[in-house]
């Protein structure tokens, strides 16, 4: 080993140690923060909060199918009982009137604080007369039998007013005492988890608990004499963001594991077959491992935390680094200085390409850029300076000259198709131009690992349950609970007006469950003292068929309400109102947010749900909400898509800039526009062909396809550069060996990514189906174009 060799090896060892320390202590995240822009707007922050821990993110929709209606109902009841006892769930609803009595009692006892109809006018003789007349009219109606018992204590109908305030929610029909789908085929339950939606472990626990409750309930019902033979057994269906993320994580984990085992085995077998040396195989892994280590460490140091997404995609990028050792081992019998200068330019090309990702506002992409750059540099340096020292003086690997010779001979024979290369850009342009519909998919759901059938199940359960999508919200934020509740009370009438105008069909507001103290105090203050109320009542009842002495309980209740303590969150404990308030009133310790989910107009079909956000915005934008309080209309899906779409457009622009950078770099290093063109043309052709092919196959392109294209350029530039070197310098070493090394490196890439292409996870298959054919085409086009350059006498061993 030379002195420089020893120094290099020592430096490498130190680096491995330091990087390992960084990697071990780095902070890894898997939550949605990767999607939060680096300098988010208030709306984007709200959006991510909602996705992470909003009420929608915590809901699990459950359907019980099979068996018969009565048995499903018994299962639903038994599941409800079990899940309500489980601390993992905040709320469990299945149509059972659980806790309704407690709710009703609380509402009735606080009716004069809660009813929006309570005002000073209400208790004047005229106001009382109108209110009592209203109640008498109700008595005459078919609904009257329900109102009769309330008359002595509540002749002004405040309880009914409160129920109207709260009861705008449409519930699914009930059969046998539990919620049932409209077609009557499944019993429905909705649970809310305590764990946030982004807490995948917590969601996994909740999903398992639901499954457990279902099995136990089925067993219980069967033991109780249900489950007649010959009937379809009851089955469980679940949906919701948490269920999806649990399933997605499991699928990705399982597929990544299985696919990487398969591709590792394939590549290992191929390299063993080529090298016929176990030692070479192990040595070849050193640059790869060093690169991965460097990549993770660089991201950890540069960004403070490493995202799972970065790791997933980044490690596949390292696939390029396995090529370096292949080139080294196979071509090392030749003049290595030429080899290194070519590899150096290849690495620089990749760096320029990936550098374009660094300024991305999407932290996931920026991390990916840094990861790739540091990983490739480290892998190249280790291949150049460390690997030769670790190699034995003579590395006994199989002779691949015959392979290279055969490839060269094949290339010689293929002459005519070169002209055909011109046809490719024309064909691709025609395909892309005549393609109907957008080439790029700007919706984040395109990346969703949730299968179409699961999405359909979700839509079905959601429409069965009538669950608000929580896609549209008004978010009122301010410095205190009182401030946001008070502001919500200002927003409520504006939203009521929008309901009248049919812009929305309804909304929820925490102020309905828990009015601000100010509103409660005002209502309490409007209740007249006993004697005044009695004399007003006497005047009011004149001519009505109701005697004042029948209403003593009313007088007594109002007097009690005048001195009643105001309603706070604490008093709601144990009622369903507490669940309502907790879901709609959030605090991060310093700021409070009141969420007012909007319901889509019922005239709109389920699959075209939309609300005219502009009208909602103009409806609430001019309200005076108080110091430091603001109200924002949030269209969750639209906002997510806008965010993703902006990332995608930005990534497209940055990639084009990166491509321009690569051209400039090549012009500088190759000192020839013609040679630059010969290097760049096969890459452009490969990208165009793959893009046209994907579009022809009906694929809409996502950001992952774009990353795949960057990879084609990064990997393919090495091939093009090797061919360019050989065209330019006929004495650059053995053509068969160079060719063989390129073919083998290419085969490794195609194998690795080709396997990914078979994944059912969109992000993985997008990457695989772009890079595998792209890398192969880049090699083929480079070879064909190299032949069309200034011809040299190709030393084909005859």
């Amino acid at each position: 080993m030379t002195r420089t060799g020893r120094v290099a090896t020592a430096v490498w060892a130190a680096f491995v140690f330091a990087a390992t320390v960084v990697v071990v202590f780095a902070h890894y995240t898997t939550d949605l923060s990767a999607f939060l822009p680096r300098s988010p707007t208030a709306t984007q922050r709200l959006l991510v909060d909602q996705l992470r821990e909003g009420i929608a993110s915590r809901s699990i929709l459950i359907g019980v199918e099979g068996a018969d209606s009565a048995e499903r109902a018994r299962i639903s009841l038994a599941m409800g009982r079990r899940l309500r006892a489980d601390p993992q769930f905040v709320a469990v609803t299945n149509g059972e009137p659980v806790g309704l009595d407690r709710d009703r009692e609380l509402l009735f006892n606080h009716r004069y604080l809660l009813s929006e109809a309570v005002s000073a006018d209400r208790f004047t003789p005229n106001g009382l007369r109108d209110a009592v007349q209203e109640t008498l009219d109700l008595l005459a109606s078919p609904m009257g039998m329900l109102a009769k018992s309330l008359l002595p204590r509540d002749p002004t109908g405040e309880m009914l007013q409160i129920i109207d305030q709260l009861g705008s929610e449409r519930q699914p029909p009930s059969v046998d005492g539990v919620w049932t789908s409209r077609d009557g085929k499944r019993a429905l339950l909705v649970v809310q988890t305590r764990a946030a939606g982004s807490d995948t472990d917590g969601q996994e626990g909740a999903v398992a608990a639901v499954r457990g409750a279902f099995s136990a309930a089925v067993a219980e019902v069967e033991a109780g004499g249900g489950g007649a033979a010959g009937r379809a057994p009851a089955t469980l269906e679940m949906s919701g963001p948490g269920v999806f993320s649990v399933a997605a994580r499991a699928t990705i984990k399982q597929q990544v594991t299985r696919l990487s085992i398969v591709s590792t085995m394939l590549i290992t077998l191929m390299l063993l077959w080529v090298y016929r040396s176990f030692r070479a195989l192990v040595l070849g892994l050193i640059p790869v491992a060093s690169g991965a280590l460097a990549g993770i460490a660089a991201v950890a140091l540069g960004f403070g935390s490493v995202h799972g997404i970065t790791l997933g995609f980044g490690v596949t990028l390292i696939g390029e680094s396995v090529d370096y050792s292949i080139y080294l081992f196979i071509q090392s019998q030749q003049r290595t200085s030429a080899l290194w200068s070519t590899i150096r330019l290849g690495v620089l090309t990749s760096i320029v390409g990936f550098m374009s990702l660094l300024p991305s506002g999407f932290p996931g992409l920026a991390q990916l850029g840094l990861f790739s750059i540091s990983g490739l540099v480290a892998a190249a340096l280790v291949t150049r300076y460390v690997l030769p020292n670790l190699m034995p003086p003579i590395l006994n690997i199989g002779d691949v000259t015959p392979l290279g010779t055969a490839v060269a001979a094949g290339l010689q024979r293929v002459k005519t198709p070169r002209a055909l290369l011109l046809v490719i850009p024309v064909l691709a342009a025609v395909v892309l131009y005549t393609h109907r519909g957008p080439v790029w998919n700007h919706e984040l759901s395109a990346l969703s690992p949730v299968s179409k059938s699961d999405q359909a199940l979700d839509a079905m359960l959601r429409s069965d349950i009538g669950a608000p999508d929580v896609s549209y919200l008004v978010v009122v934020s301010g410095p205190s609970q009182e401030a946001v509740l008070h502001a919500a009370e200002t927003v409520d009438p504006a939203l009521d007006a929008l309901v009248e105008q049919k812009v929305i069909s309804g909304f929820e507001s925490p102020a309905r469950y828990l009015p601000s103290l100010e509103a409660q105090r005002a209502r309490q203050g409007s209740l007249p003292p006993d004697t005044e109320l009695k004399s007003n009542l006497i005047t009011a009842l004149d001519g009505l068929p109701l005697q004042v002495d029948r209403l003593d309980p009313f007088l007594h209740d109002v007097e009690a309400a005048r001195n009643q303590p105001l309603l706070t969150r604490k008093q709601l404990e144990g009622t369903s109102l507490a669940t309502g308030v907790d879901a709609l009133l959030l605090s991060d310790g310093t700021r409070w947010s009141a969420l007012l989910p909007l319901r889509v107009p019922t005239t709109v079909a389920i699959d075209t749900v939309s609300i005219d956000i502009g009208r909602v915005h103009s409806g609430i934008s001019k309200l005076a909400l108080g110091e430091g309080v603001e109200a924002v209309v949030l269209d969750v899906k639209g906002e997510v898509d806008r965010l993703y779409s902006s990332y995608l457009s930005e990534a497209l622009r940055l990639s084009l800039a990166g491509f321009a950078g690569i051209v400039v770099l090549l012009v500088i290093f190759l000192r020839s526009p013609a040679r630059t063109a010969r290097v760049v043309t096969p890459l452009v052709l490969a990208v165009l062909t793959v893009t046209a092919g994907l579009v022809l196959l009906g694929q809409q392109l996502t950001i992952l396809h774009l990353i795949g294209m960057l990879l084609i350029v990064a990997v393919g530039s090495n091939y093009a550069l090797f061919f360019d070197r050989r065209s330019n310098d006929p004495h650059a070493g053995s053509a068969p060996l160079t060719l063989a090394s390129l073919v083998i490196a290419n085969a490794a890439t195609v194998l690795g990514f080709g396997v990914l292409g078979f994944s059912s996870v969109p992000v993985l298959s997008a990457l695989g189906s772009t890079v595998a054919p792209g890398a192969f085409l880049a090699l083929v086009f480079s070879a064909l174009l190299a032949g069309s350059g200034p011809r040299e006498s190709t030393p084909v061993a005859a």
Partner: protein
Amino acid sequence: MSRSLAGSPARRVGVVLAGALALVLASAPIAADAAGSDLDRVMGALAQRKTGHVSFTEKKFIAMLDRPVESSGELLYDAPDRLEKRTIEPKPEDLVLEGGVVSAQRGKHHYVLDLKQYPQVVPFIESIRATLAGDRASLERVFKVDFTGSFEHWTLGLVPLDSKLARTVAQIHIEGEKDLIHTVEIHEADGDRSLLTIGADVAP
């Protein structure tokens, strides 16, 4: 709609009425066969009518009030289980019974009530629906049915079989001629009663 009737205990009136009814029943076993066949004739005739659209007036006699509250409107019936009560006075209200679910529209408000969840409402509705449908089996599932009179002029006395239901509805009298219902009188267990009088056919 999450309101429910306060379960008021059976008052003496109900007990007395039930007692009187038991006497009547005990003293009329001889007429049973003839009554049974007349009942079947009435039911058969009612079952023939597939639709109906009539006016109604209703008086409710409520102990708390000095005089009855009145309402009027139209009744629409489609065999076998759609019944609509369109109240016009004093306040427009639309009540629809369809497939065991009652939905009501009153002003801006819409209520949905599942009869399975509010069994105490069942006698109020099933008495009229099953009679209109000529569905004797359904009637007898919910009520002890007592038929008096003849096919030309009959009275049905209905007493809830379920003791819980009897705590809200003591008994129901339905009076009619052949396949026409004239009045439905509901005696609630607390002594209040309502009298529904069916008027002329409403031209379609």
